[in-house]
């Protein structure tokens, strides 16, 4: 490795792509019994990675062309699958996001997972995830991306099922793996389509050729739609969205890291990674736009009725991912990536805050957290409100800027239906996120619960006071950092935009709204959106916050609709039925019977025939030696007669 010191950029990238893997290996093989050491190794590795990522971002921020390193990973006939790094503006931005959030979550986990028997295992899996995600982000080719994409899925499976002794957790892990696998089959076939139709899987080459029209349009469309299947699976888009809410069975920091901020955003990242390729196929873009819209609206409705604090954020993640997909599909490259960035910040913030509540009150139910005195935990309460404001898109929080950008893109789209859907989605988001906030801020207790209430209060206070040790602060610091980021990030919109777009002249045309700045239409849109968001918050206040509010929600008046939402539009029932009917009772049953009855039956039949045939003629065998001898003598006699005469 003599060449390492000569190229600091390469060594930094290599560090990101190897250190977490090594840390995982070391933890799993050697340091499992030593929890503190394992934790130190993992956090140390991710800190170095964070440093490297920041270093790369800073050194390469003005780089005129993407920096690319490649080595042949496998060579088979004329197909070369490279392993390498592609460091351009987008990948560096995403790398930094992943490193920052991973770092914060790992620090947070020191407190959250404190005393858990599987502490070492937890950090090993976290390292696995960090490794897979960072290597995926800087992949130069689609196959490397796919490989680490699958590994990220594996890490997700392991972390969702982290509490493996809980049946529902392992069930959720399995569901997540299989459902994303379903999408990945499409992704894989899409890669093969591109490989066969174009012959090169380098991301830059693909983008370039698609833009220049060097690839057959049919190949582009088919490839893009198939690759989009992978996005649907990983980013939990309709119709594969139900695994994500179930994935909340994992530890809360995992939900924050994987299932909101980074991993599920991988789908959106993939879309933006090969954005010019997608953009070359209007049909694929239309499909993506429709799917994104359906997802966004569907997931928001589901968030209206659940009382599980993590479920609300899960549904909102799905819905925000749908929002990003919409933006990209409508041509808003920057808006999508910008929302991805801000969302990573504020959604991680929301989850980590919820984690503090859950850790404190040992329940996921927002009503019980409220009754237990959730608002007494000042730091997380304030931070969570900051996150919710950002999610709802209220000025001056980061979500406001990115949402405005997306709405601006949608306004440009000829079909105004999508703009309407986007605005409706914004209002719904504000409503359900503040429904949660108000539940915790203004708890209601029924009369018979009053005594419990007091007790719970005292209990909560005790906890609050007692936990202001390192455990609490390990959780509080990351939260406060994220809250600050959420507050300021929005004001860096222009910087981010010029940083990202310097390399994407292709999408300039689509970005007219953001570039052209602030026409009258834009102001109108801005005001409408903010009004809708504030309206949503106010409506939530009327129903849940206000003193005379019933805390029931308007949906209580439409029980049928409420059941529909609460059952996730019966999508899970549908999948369950389909799985039972098609797989278990269908193919499996038929094939198993075929194996037992037809194939084995046939073979056993042949054997039985042989045995039976033997038995049928076995009466000839008397077992008497002398009968055989008589027969022999007689036969010799006959032979003598025949030949002699």
């Amino acid at each position, binding site marked *: 490795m003599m060449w390492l010191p000569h190229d600091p950029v390469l060594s930094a990238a290599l560090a990101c792509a190897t250190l977490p893997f090594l840390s995982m290996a070391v933890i799993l093989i050697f340091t499992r019994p030593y929890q503190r050491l394992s934790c130190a190794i993992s956090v140390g590795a991710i800190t170095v990675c964070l440093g490297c990522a920041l270093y790369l971002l800073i050194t390469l921020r003005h780089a005129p062309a993407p920096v690319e390193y490649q080595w*042949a*990973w*496998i*060579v*088979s*006939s004329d*197909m070369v699958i490279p392993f390498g790094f592609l460091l351009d503006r987008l990948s560096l931005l995403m790398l930094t996001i992943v490193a920052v959030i991973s770092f914060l979550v790992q620090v947070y986990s020191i407190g959250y997972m404190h005393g858990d028997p599987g502490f070492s295992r937890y950090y090993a899996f976290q390292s696995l995830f960090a490794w897979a995600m960072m290597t995926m982000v800087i992949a130069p080719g689609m*196959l490397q991306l796919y*490989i*680490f994409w*699958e*590994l990220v899925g*594996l890490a997700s*499976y392991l972390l969702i*099922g982290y509490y*493996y*002794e809980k*049946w529902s957790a*392992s*069930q959720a*892990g*399995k569901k997540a*793996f*299989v459902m994303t*696998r*379903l999408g990945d*089959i499409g992704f*894989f*076939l899409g890669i*093969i389509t591109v*490989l*066969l139709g174009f012959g090169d899987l380098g991301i830059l080459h693909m983008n370039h050729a698609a833009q220049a029209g060097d690839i057959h349009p049919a190949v582009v469309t088919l490839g893009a739609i198939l690759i989009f299947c992978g996005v649907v699976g990983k980013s939990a888009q309709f119709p594969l969205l139900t695994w994500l809410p179930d994935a909340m069975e994992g530890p809360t920091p995992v939900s924050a890291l994987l299932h909101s901020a980074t991993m599920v955003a991988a789908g959106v990242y993939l879309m933006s990674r090969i954005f010019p390729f997608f953009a070359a196929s209007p049909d694929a873009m239309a499909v993506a736009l429709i799917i994104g819209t359906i997802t966004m609206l569907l997931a928001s409705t589901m968030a209206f009725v659940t009382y599980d604090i993590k479920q609300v954020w899960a549904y909102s993640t799905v819905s925000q991912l749908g929002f990003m997909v919409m933006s990209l599909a409508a041509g808003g490259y920057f808006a999508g990536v910008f929302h991805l960035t801000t969302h990573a910040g504020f959604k991680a913030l929301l989850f980590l805050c919820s984690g503090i509540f859950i850790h404190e009150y040992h329940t996921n139910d927002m009503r019980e957290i409220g009754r237990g005195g959730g608002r007494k935990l000042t730091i997380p309460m304030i931070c969570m409100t900051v996150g919710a404001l950002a999610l709802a898109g209220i000025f001056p929080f980061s979500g406001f800027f990115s949402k405005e950008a997306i709405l601006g893109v949608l306004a440009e789209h000829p079909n105004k239906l999508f703009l309407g859907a986007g605005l409706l989605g914004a209002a719904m988001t504000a409503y359900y996120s503040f429904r949660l906030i108000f539940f915790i801020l203004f708890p209601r207790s029924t009369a018979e619960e009053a005594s419990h209430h007091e007790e719970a209060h005292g209990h909560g206070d005790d906890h609050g006071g007692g936990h202001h040790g390192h455990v609490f602060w390990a959780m509080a610091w990351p939260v406060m950092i994220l809250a600050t980021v959420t507050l300021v990030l929005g004001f860096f919109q222009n910087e981010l935009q010029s940083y990202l777009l310097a390399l994407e002249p292709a999408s300039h045309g689509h970005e007219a709204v953001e570039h052209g700045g602030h026409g009258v239409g834009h102001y109108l849109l801005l005001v409408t959106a903010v009004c809708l968001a504030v309206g949503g918050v106010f409506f939530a206040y009327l129903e849940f916050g206000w003193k005379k509010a019933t805390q029931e929600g308007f949906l209580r008046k439409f029980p049928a609709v409420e059941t529909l939402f609460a059952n996730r539009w019966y999508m899970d029932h549908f999948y369950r039925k389909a799985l039972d009917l098609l*797989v*278990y009772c269908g*193919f*499996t*049953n038929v*094939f*198993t019977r075929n*194996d037992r009855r037809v*194939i*084995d039956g046939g*073979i056993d039949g042949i*054997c039985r025939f042989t045995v039976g045939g033997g038995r049928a003629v076995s009466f000839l065998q008397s077992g008497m030696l002398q009968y055989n001898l008589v027969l022999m003598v007689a036969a010799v006699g006959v032979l003598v007669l025949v030949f002699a005469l």
Partner: protein
Amino acid sequence: MTAMEFAQFPILSAILFSTLLALLVILFIPDDRPKLVKQVSLGFAAVGLALSLYVYFAYDPHKGGLQFVERVLWVKSLGIYYFLAADGINVPMILLTAVVLFTGVLTMWELDKRVKEYFALTYLLVAGVYGVFMSMDLFFIFVWYDVSLFPMYPLIAIWGSTRKEYGAMKLTLYLLAGSALILPGILYLWAVAGGTTFDLFELQRLGFDVQVQRIAFVMLYLGFGILAGVWPFHTWSPVGHVAAPTAVSMIHAGVLMKLGAYGILRVGMTLCPEGLVYWADLMALLATIGIVYGAFVGLAQTDLKYVIGYSSVSHMGIVGLGLSTLTVDGINGAVFQMFSHGIMTALFFSAVGYIYDKTHTKMIPELGGLSKTMPKASAFFILAAFCGIGVPCMSSFWAELLVFISAVKTYPLRGILAVSGLVVSALFMLRVVQKTFYGEKNPKWEHIPDVPLFLASPRIILVGILIFYGLFPRLILDIIQSAVVPFVNSL
């Protein structure tokens, strides 16, 4: 000792005859010294492993072709040669055999029933396997092939479990039926070529008529295919795996099934390329059915070993699919899959072996929550399952990738079907993992100790190999490729 001198040393014969020597030595150890038998077995296995590793490292993929050639005329009138050689296709197979034998001996360290006979028969079996992999002479390939079949019957019928007589008998009958097809196939080719040589490469040079190739290929394909678990001749394999003792399952599923695929490639495809072209369509169809079918049937099984047996059917289907594509990528993938599937199933059976030894059951509904009591033992099975699902950075992923890419290219519809089989295989592997290892701690198994380091060592080796070749696939793929590229070009 210089490299030249070492090249003269008949290393392949040394590997082959060290197993026969082991067999002899074991036979001369008194019955009441089982410990000594095990130590001797392990010693010889280690020697074999070291020699195979030497072959693996000394084989020069840039030069390619046959290396370490040993060729002696044996019976002149029939044209039988004692002809051993290594090329890119059998170098990984030899390594695989050595690894599986070594880990298999370690896995059976706690055996206490007729130890001497068990290890003697194992060595006879392995001698046959080595013989088939190394021989380049049809006569010897057939002889060694039958040598490797014979010990299976006693090994299963004496040391097995669950319906062992039935399993042993079924397996033996099936495999003998296979060799009853292979022998006439070989003799037919030999006779058509003039009855002067059994040398594989001389026969290849002589060439055969298209019609002859078509007939001979289908005989060889079915004969070897039975051993490779080609659908619909696969049912012996789950039953046999279930009945066999742990290490025999390892050798059997890990190595013996590869013998079938290797035979198709080495004998069938080398001598009858035209026949292959003619039958490739059918091969691809059967292989695809096998992939999907195996996964679905695996979903319904309740016995851990049945599950692995059916996963083998599915994975061997991938080998068949790769071979039938007739492309460099496909055959590369197929050979790679033979190697990694061998290691993977060995790991599977080894992991189940420990669980079965301790709990005396391998029924999934009776198990459950094992991760709590034996985290290490469970981890090995779970890792094998990940490999079976085709998780990247484990060696079988690369094999599947290559096979699927070339399959979609050559047979789009069947390729897509086979790729979709991945979802089912993920579902069924994870289902087994969940039901066996996850969930509440089961009080029944609470007293069971986790694997001690020594017993874990074979599993650690296997896991290490899977991950090592998953991260650095070129180390083996380049060797395979050195043989496959000229082979495909010669078609």
